């Protein structure tokens, strides 16, 4: 009784989609990073499945590279997060928008309402 490859692919597709949703949905920088990792994992699954299906090693080799890149990304990204925190900035991506149109407006950490006020100004 064998598992059709399509199952794996569908699973990876679902995971990837969930990763995208998480990427859009999450507010915390770290979790946003995590959602990226989730997407990468989904892609890896697809790679391995294809490699298995075609009996070729290239897919597996590529997984390595994906993992390495993910590691690098995590290292740098988390360092950035650390700096954000050290500068007393909130980890909420919606509050970190110094590059936004309208210049660096610091959103007070209070209620959403006054934050919106700050955004408008």
């Amino acid at each position, binding site marked *: *009784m*064998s*598992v*059709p*490859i*399509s*199952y*794996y*692919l*569908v*699973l990876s*597709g*679902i*995971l*990837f*989609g*969930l990763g995208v*949703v*998480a*990427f*859009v*949905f*999450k*507010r*915390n920088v*770290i*979790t946003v990073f*995590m959602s990226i*990792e*989730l997407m990468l*994992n989904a892609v*890896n*699954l697809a790679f*391995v*499945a294809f490699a*298995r*299906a075609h009996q070729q*090693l290239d897919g*597996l*080799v590529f*997984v*390595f*590279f994906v*993992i*390495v*890149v*993910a590691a*690098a990304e995590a*290292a*740098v990204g*988390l*360092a950035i997060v*650390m*700096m954000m925190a050290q500068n007393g900035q909130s980890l*909420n991506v*919606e*509050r970190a928008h110094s590059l936004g149109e309208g210049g660096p407006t610091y959103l007070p950490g209070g209620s*959403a309402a006054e*934050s919106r006020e700050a*955004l408008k100004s």
Partner: protein
Amino acid sequence: MIPLIVFFACALLAVASAVTLILAREPIHSALSLINVMVALAILYLLLGAEFISAVQIIVYAGAIMVLFVFVIMLLNAGVEERTDYSKLAKYAGLPLGFFLLIEIARWMYGSSAGSTIANGAGAITGAVSTRDLSSELFRQYLFNFEATSLLILIAILGALVLARKNQ
């Protein structure tokens, strides 16, 4: 029979964990659920006969990268995530489209590969990709890429150091 059971168990675990990743407000919980996903995927890799990959998946991803995440979360004591909602775009366009993408990709991948089957778990383990072949592939055909990635990660390390250094 067993492979199917294993597969569905892992798939279920993975998807559920991914959903909890999204829903959890506590970053640690998200991290844990992501680890779950990774472990589940590692098992699936075993099922697919990619032993080495699954080991690497656990060692590097779950054992190193995610530890880093947990470490940072603990260090910053990142509290409960506040569900601010400044981005109308994300609310009304991003999320729906994300879900749409999810369904679309899944559907397409199914359609593109429906019916093609591969060897089951037990067979896969016996017919597993030997680490030797994998490494020879990696160090012969993909040597340059390998070196390039090593350089990349070195640069990443340096970048992380520079960023995290106390700025004086």
